[in-house]
Each structure stands twice: as C-alpha cells, then as structure tokens.
C-alpha cells in the first residue's frame, strides 16, 4: 500500500488517521444505539401483548418452524464469525483472505434470507399471514393473528436490515478487492462489521421471543 493512498484516506477535518478511525467507530456505535431503541419499541409492544395474551401467543408460537429458525440463527452466528475473521484479516492487510471472508459473510446472509423466504412461503400456504391470507381456526384466533402481525413486522424489519448489511459488504468487498484498505486504515471493514454484529444480536433476541416461548 503506497503512502499516497494512505494520505488520500485522511479527511481534512481530522488531525491524524487514529482520530478519524475513533470517530468512525463512535459514529457507528451511536447509530447502533438508535437502532437498539428502534427495535426496542416494537419489542416492547410485543412484550405487552405477550403479557396480556399469554395463551394465544404460546399457541401461535407452536405454529412457527422451530427447525428453520434454529438453522437461521446458526447461519447468522456463523456470519458474525466470518466477519470477525475478516476484520482480523484486514488488520493484517491480507487482501485475498479479507475479500474471501467478506463474500462468505454475504453468502451466509443470502442463505439466511433464503431460509426466511421459505418460512414465509410455508406460512402463506398455511394461511397464517394476517391481511393477505389468514385462515386459522384454532383457539384464540384474535391473539394468534396479533402474534403473526408482530412476527411479520419484526422479521421483515430485521430482513430489511440484513439486505442493507449484505449490500454494504458487497461494496466493502469490492473496495477491498481494489486494495483501498491497509493495515493502518480499514475502518470501513470494521464499521460494517459492527453493523452486522448488531443485526445478528437483534436476531439473537428475536429468535427466542418469537420461536422459543412455547412454555
């Protein structure tokens, strides 16, 4: 990495590259705080109805595919793993390894979305989609409908964040392939990694709340 490129990275309002890297990390953490409150609001709504309509929500949780949910969680944890390795590779300046790991993360993300789409499709076929096709006759119909409204709102929000994450990794992988990052300055990889880990943490909480509370 010749020094000219490194000079090009430093933006004029910063004194040195370390200050810029700290600012980027702090900026992403502030953004993640906003995302925490964003998902927190809808999880609060879910928790209130789970408190009021316990039986209906337990009944509805049994309708979800626990297996697919568990696989998805494993996929997402795996993608967090590959991102951690990618950040490490970037810090050592191993370009090929970095690009490979970033692409792996993107592929795992797409796999997650694929599994998610299969779940949506089977739920649509079973008539569990409020608004589109809701032909559920079991006990507590109103409460089950409410549960599935939350299920689709929360997982769709999460999936949207996944799509944004995958797009970011595609751009960062392309930039890495063009050799823009160096061991001194790779904060784009680090910051997109932080965002991805956050999306993973959101799923770490969504999975038990939706799939596992079958007590």
């Amino acid at each position, binding site marked *: 990495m010749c020094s000219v490129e490194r000079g090009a990275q430093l933006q004029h*309002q*910063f004194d040195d590259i370390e200050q810029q890297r700290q600012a980027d990390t702090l900026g992403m953490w502030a953004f993640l705080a*906003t995302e925490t409150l964003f998902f927190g609001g809808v999880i609060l709504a879910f928790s209130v109805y789970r408190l009021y309509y316990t039986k209906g929500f337990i009944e509805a949780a049994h309708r979800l595919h626990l297996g697919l949910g568990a696989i998805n969680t494993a996929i997402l944890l795996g993608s967090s793993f590959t991102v951690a390795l990618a950040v490490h590779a970037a810090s050592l300046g191993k370009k090929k390894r970095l690009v490979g790991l970033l692409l792996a993360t993107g592929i795992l993300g797409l796999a997650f979305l694929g599994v998610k789409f299969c779940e949506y499709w089977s739920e649509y076929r079973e008539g569990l989609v409020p608004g589109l096709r809701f032909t559920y006759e079991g006990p507590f119909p109103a409460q089950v409908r409410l549960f599935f409204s939350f299920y689709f709102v929360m997982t769709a929000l999460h999936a949207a964040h996944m799509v944004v994450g995958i797009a970011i990794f595609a751009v960062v992988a392309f930039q890495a392939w063009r050799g823009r990052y160096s061991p001194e300055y790779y904060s784009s990889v680090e910051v997109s990694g932080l965002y991805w880990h956050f999306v993973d943490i959101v799923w770490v909480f969504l999975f038990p709340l939706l799939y596992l509370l079958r007590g």
Partner: protein
Amino acid sequence: MTPLEPSPPVTARETYLNAGYSLKSWLLALDHKRIAILYFVSITLFFFVGGAFATLVRLELMTPRGDLVSSDTYNKLFTMHGIIMIFFFLIPSIPATLGNFLVPMMLGARDLAFPRLNLLSWYIFVAGGVLTMVAVVSGGVDTGWTFYTPYSSAFSNTSVVVTVVGVFVTGFSSILTGLNFIVTIHTLRAPGLTWGRLPLFIWSLYATSIIMILGTPVLAISLALVGAERIFHVGIFDPASGGDPLLFQHLFWYYSHPAVYIMILPGMGVVSEIIPCFARKNIFGYGVVALSSLAIAFTGFLVWGHHMFVSGQSVYSGLVFSFLSYLVAIPSAVKVFNWTATLYKGSISFHTPMLYAFGFLGLFTMGGLTGLFVAALGVDVHVHDTYFVVAHFHYIMVGGMVMAYLGGVHFWWPKISGRMYPEWIARFSAFVVFLGFNLTFFPQYVLGYLGMPRRYHSYPDEFQVLNVLSSAGASILAVGYVLPLIYLLASLKYGKAAGPNPWIATGLEWQTPSPPPTSNFPTTPTVTAGPYEYQDMEVPFVQR
C-alpha cells in the same frame, strides 16, 4: 439611529460565502457553515408556512360559530400547524442552523466529524418536508400532530400514511445531526479545550444530541406501526382485534416529551452565551448549569406518562409519572436562578440579543411554572386537553425557544453574514414580539381553566371575549416575526461591516474573521482559559 447606507464592500478575503456562487457549490456543499445556511433558509420557509396555518386558526377562533372554514378544514389546519412547527421548525432550528454553524468553530475544528452525513441530513430533512407538503396539497391530514390511534390508524380517511412517512424520514435527519454533534464534541475538540472549558452552548447541544439519537427512533417505530396498521391492518393498535390504543400513546410520548427538551435545551444554551456577554460577567455556577442540561436530557425520558393521566392509564403509574415530572422541573429552575444570579453586579447593556434573553428568562419561567399545574394529578384531570395546556407549551416553545432562537440569530448574525443588523429596529421588534406573545397566550390560560377544550372548531359563546383577545395578540406577534425577516435580509446589503468580534465576546468563534473562511482557523487554536473570562476583557458600548 445609525443611518442605513450601503457599507464598503467586504475586502476580497476568501470567506465561506464567496468560496463559490454556483448553485452546485451550495447544494453539494460539505462545509458545515454552508449547510447551516441551507438549513436557515429551509426552516425559515417552514416557520412562515406554519405561521400561516396558525393565523388561519386564530382567525377561525374569533367567532364562536367558527364560520371561516369548515370543521374538517380547521382540523387539517391545526394538524399541519402542529406538524410543521414541531418537526420542521422547532426541532431542527437551533441545532441545525446555529449548531451546525458554530459547533466546529466553538471547538476550534475545521468541520464536523462527518460532513457528508451532515449534507445527507439536510437532503433527508427536505425530502421529509416535500413529502409532508405533498400531504398538505393532496388534502391534508386531520389527526392532530399526535396521530392518536385508533383515529389515525383506522378512522381518518386523509393522507395519513404520506405524512407519517414524511415525519419518519425527517426524524432521521434529526438523528444524523445528533450523531454528528456527539462524535464531533468527543473527538474534534481543540487542544486545551477540556470539558470544563466547553461553552455552555456546546453542553446544551450535547445533551440535545443524546435525546435526538435515543428518542427519535422510538417515534420512527411508532409512526411506522401506524403506517403498517393503515396499510396491512396488523391490528396492533386496533381495539377490535385485541390491540391497545394506549400502547401507541406510550411509544409516541416516549419520544415526544423528550422532544420538547430537544426544542428548549439549545435555547437555554444560546441564553447561557448571551447573558454573560452582555452582562460582561462569567456565568454563575458554570458546572451546575452544564450538568443540569444533562440532567434534563436524562430525566426528560422518565416523565412521558403525564400526557396520559386521564387516558385510562393506571392510577399508580400516573403517580409515578407525576412525581418524576416534578424531578425534571428542578434542573430548569436551577438554570433560571443561575442566569438571574449572573446579572448580579454585572455591567448590563440592552442590545437586542440581551432583550431576547430577558424575554426568554421571564416567559420560560412562566411556562415552566405552569408545567407544575399540569403535572399535579388533581389539576390535570381538569385542565388536560384544554387551552391551559396549549398556553403552557406555547409559553415554552414560542416564549422560550423562539425568543432564544431570535436572540441567537441576532447575536451571531455579524459572524454569519459579516454585517451588523440595525440595532434600534431590532430592539423595537423584540418588544413587539414580547407584547404580541403575552397578549396571544396569557388569555388562553384563563380559557383553559374555564374548560374550553383543545382543537375545537366552534365553542360556546362565553369563551369568545378571551378568544378575540388572543387573536388580536396573534396579529401583533405576526408583525413581530415579519420585522426581523425584513431588516436581517436588508442588513445583508446595507448592514455595517462587522469586525471579527463586534460584541467583544469570549469563545473561539469570535477569534476568526466574520464571515469566517472556509477552514475556520488558519491554524488550530489552543485554549488556555475558561469559557466566560469577561473580567479581564475591555467593556464595549459604554455611553458616557
């Protein structure tokens, strides 16, 4: 009266204003000062649009029968007045204009931490504004700025979804501004500028930014859920399918009460800068005033339930929220006492910024004290959703926030435009604003306790006298607001050239020429003393 004659042209020094005249150089500007000007223009536009709606509302309320417009149109008028004034003027005004312009300069930095994000936040703000204007043009929305469900989600047949998306989008511009400020204040302070030497304007913007990034997302999700409810009938707030309408109120007020602190904290920051400068004295109790901004930012999130005392919320949580609401009043009271104590043994001059600061001090005190009425459970049962509440929040928003905003604009106008505004016209318009304001909103306290509910298109006859008084005051207030627009724009051409420090004020922004060059400081300044060391500076404007 200094005669208004065209002043000599500013010397051909490179400033952020003459760094480029093309539209592209403005619309794609990354310089925080230019983005501040873009925000100035857009929020002034929105202020006068919101003001026009307010004028129509006041005209409508002159007569009990309410025969100026139909009740449907009236509902849309007060809704748009609320939405535009709050989301498109009050929330962005000081942070996005004076804040964007001054934060880097007060910190001795060349620019904010993320200039591109700053420009993006302006474009998002304008996109949200355009969307809301589309909603206005295509029939308006009549849910009130509070969007209470189930009316907003099931019963209103106006363009609620377009407005909700507009406000959702504008919320992100507020998040980006807050995020930018927090990172800049943490990482780009000049050498020697410790937290104990930060100007109080920066402290108040720091506290505001905390509220912006931690509160706005919850508004985003609650409005998104209303949108989802209208489009997909998810039933989260729909009582027919088991939903709880109060849940929306919890999510909405979780943001919307701290939002009133987003609006007032920057105003407090401006007043903390103006009073020491024109009293030539250090602020009394710097540490306490700085920490009270953070205290307001934190306790502001604990009190939202006082909007729901009679909404069917549980009696016990009403008690909790009422007590916490009294806690949040304490830091504001402490600030007022400290400002007043700053005047003691000062050397006070009565320039326009100081007049606006005095106005803020008095009116914010009255607004804050009437907050004690609506936080007292027993009284709130009577005055909730009446004109008493309307008067309370207008005393704080218009009496406090807009006064401080005008004070700040006049105080930093020489730095922003390089020109002085005409002093005597400005003092006159400050009095007009003060008089018009009190005549408009004090009668509403009496109306409120008499029991006139909010958002009424027509009302019983016995309320007419006070309403006519209020409408009369509104016309004077309107004049008071149009005057600064005229003479400030005129001062761009006719104003006297202002030197780097016309008020002989402390603060890094006054140690660079006005209007400042694009990179603010030739070399990064170092700070050696506290923020308001006026005791060893010469005293200007002394009449013998």
